[in-house]
């Protein structure tokens, strides 16, 4: 029998019926540990789902205690239409007894891990596409396209057992270079199809030494390389982070020592400069020096890629005693209330206010382009968010992706700037 990856073992363990073995390429029906859904704008979809479940005769959701709804995209509602959508979804969830995590709690991917809702070995199906983020704690986080009704009505989903790509990151970062630069660099090296339909594991000495915040950042970007799930093998750092958070029993799976990866990429992180993904592709990645001086109108720090405490700490340290350029809006959106509270206690939020940054409540913020920080045609943003697809933050606008340090340095300079000049 061929050897298995930890991600494959998780699927085999959750298969219905459960199986000792799973082979890449086969589809297995599973019951997830968590089905994370969105209190969305889409009123039509809420109406359809309600009508469809009634039509199918479904009165109880078989896994309702495993379903959690997050109000993270465009929340609180920025328009009357959005409010109507939110209301219909809340009504739907309440009617079926589904827990709604509302009121500025933050982005699903952060909250699931921070609150110990997800643990290592869990299969977390997330309606949102950055589901792989929870791979940082050794969970199988995957997004879904179709199959939502099946999860509501049957509590089941199907997963294609993935092949796995390994990226080993060796060495220490130079000053001014952060985990987000590594993630952008990896995206540039692998491209948008580098892990298409596969699992994506990060290992190597950089990962071993990296904080959990940066591990989440790495795993988050798996989505942008086409990965169905990201993975970092849990170690002492993971378990220490989980200890006060995850109170439920969990299983740390391990990859068989002779597992055959689909491909491996070795990257020396000591050679990396601050990185920028230029419009309009997340894998069109250049060293910051190649685009330095480009005018910007808005700088955004937030999202499930880079809305964590370490990101805000980096930003605050860099902007302390300086001001945002008068022609630039610097918007800072913590990823979760936990992050916002910790950043407030540490004084980072005051520092940001003093520098004239706009600090918002915890949510997806400007990332999805549906509220708080939409760009006008012709405007240019530098952002720590996940994607720079054409039109994402506003029709006719341009988005450069970079680390929190590069975003803040640029906000001070009024144009794309190298954070190393501000250390």
């Amino acid at each position: 029998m061929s050897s298995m990856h930890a991600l494959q073992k998780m699927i085999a363990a959750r298969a219905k019926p459960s199986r000792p073995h799973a082979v890449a390429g086969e589809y297995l029906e599973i019951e997830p540990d968590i089905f994370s859904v969105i209190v969305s704008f889409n009123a039509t979809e809420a109406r359809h789902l309600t009508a469809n479940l009634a039509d199918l005769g479904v009165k109880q959701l078989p896994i309702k205690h495993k379903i959690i709804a997050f109000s993270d995209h465009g929340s609180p509602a920025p328009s009357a239409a959005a409010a109507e959508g939110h209301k219909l979804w809340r009504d739907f969830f309440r009617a079926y007894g589904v827990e709604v995590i509302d009121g500025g709690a933050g982005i699903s991917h952060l909250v699931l891990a921070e609150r110990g809702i997800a643990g290592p070995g869990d299969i977390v199906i997330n309606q949102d596409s950055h589901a792989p983020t929870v791979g940082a704690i050794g969970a199988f986080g995957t997004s879904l396209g179709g199959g939502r009704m099946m999860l509501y009505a049957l509590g089941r989903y199907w997963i294609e057992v993935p092949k796995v790509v390994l990226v080993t990151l060796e060495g220490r970062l130079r000053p001014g270079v952060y985990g987000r630069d590594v993630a952008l660099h990896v995206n540039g090296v692998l491209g948008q199809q580098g892990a298409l339909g596969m699992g994506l594991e990060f290992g190597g000495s950089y990962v071993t030494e990296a904080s959990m915040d940066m591990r989440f950042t790495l795993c988050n970007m798996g989505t942008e390389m086409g990965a169905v799930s990201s993975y970092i093998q849990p170690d002492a750092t993971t378990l220490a982070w989980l200890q006060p958070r995850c109170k439920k029993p969990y299983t740390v799976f391990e990859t068989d020592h002779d597992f055959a990866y689909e491909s491996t990429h070795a990257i020396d992180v000591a050679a990396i400069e601050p990185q920028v993904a230029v419009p309009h592709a997340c894998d069109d990645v250049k060293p910051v020096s190649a685009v330095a001086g480009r005018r910007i109108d808005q700088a955004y720090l937030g999202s499930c890629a880079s809305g964590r405490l370490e990101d805000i700490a980096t930003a605050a340290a860099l902007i302390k005693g300086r001001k945002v350029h008068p022609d630039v809006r610097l918007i800072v959106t913590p990823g979760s209330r936990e992050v916002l509270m910790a950043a407030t206690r540490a004084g980072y939020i005051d520092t940001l206010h003093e520098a004239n940054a706009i600090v918002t409540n915890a949510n997806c913020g400007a990332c999805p382009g549906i509220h708080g920080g939409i760009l006008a045609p012709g405007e240019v943003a530098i952002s720590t968010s996940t994607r720079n697809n054409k039109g994402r933050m506003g029709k006719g606008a341009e988005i450069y992706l970079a680390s929190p340090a590069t975003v803040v340095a640029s906000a001070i300079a009024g144009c794309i700037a190298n954070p190393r000049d501000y250390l």
Partner: protein
Amino acid sequence: MKLTGKAWKFAQEDISTDLIRGKAWSHLPAKEQGAHCLEEVDPAFAAQAAPGDFIVAGKNFGCGSSTAAHVAVIGLGIGAVIAESLGKLFITNAASAGLWAVSCPGIIDVVNAGDRIELDTASWQLRNLTSGKTIAANPLPGFLGEMIELGGEKNYLRARLAREAAG
């Protein structure tokens, strides 16, 4: 089953869901979304495509967010999407709504714009009726095929709930 249609070719790679259907149109009824289908890539496409036509695409078609861009494709009446490779979310989104989205490595080299092509979802052979060439598509798993043939996820669930109730 066998499906035939005229090919519209989008050879470029990484056409994301945002490019398939701009976010600005997501609130519109499916038919009206269809009028904006792929407009960022080819502004003339939606007005000229006829019901039953196929989209033939390059690698990683439908990548990016899980937004319901397939609704615009269905709204336009497209019979099937056949690509070098597809975003995983797009495949299941499409199947769930009863749209064939099939990956077929090599398709870009054997199909020209305007060719008539035939997809056999039993043998998973794709035949270019214009040139006579055939190529193998990647089979979809049985349950997804069943879902699409039944017209989507709801009908599949209805059939399955009935099967399970009958034991």
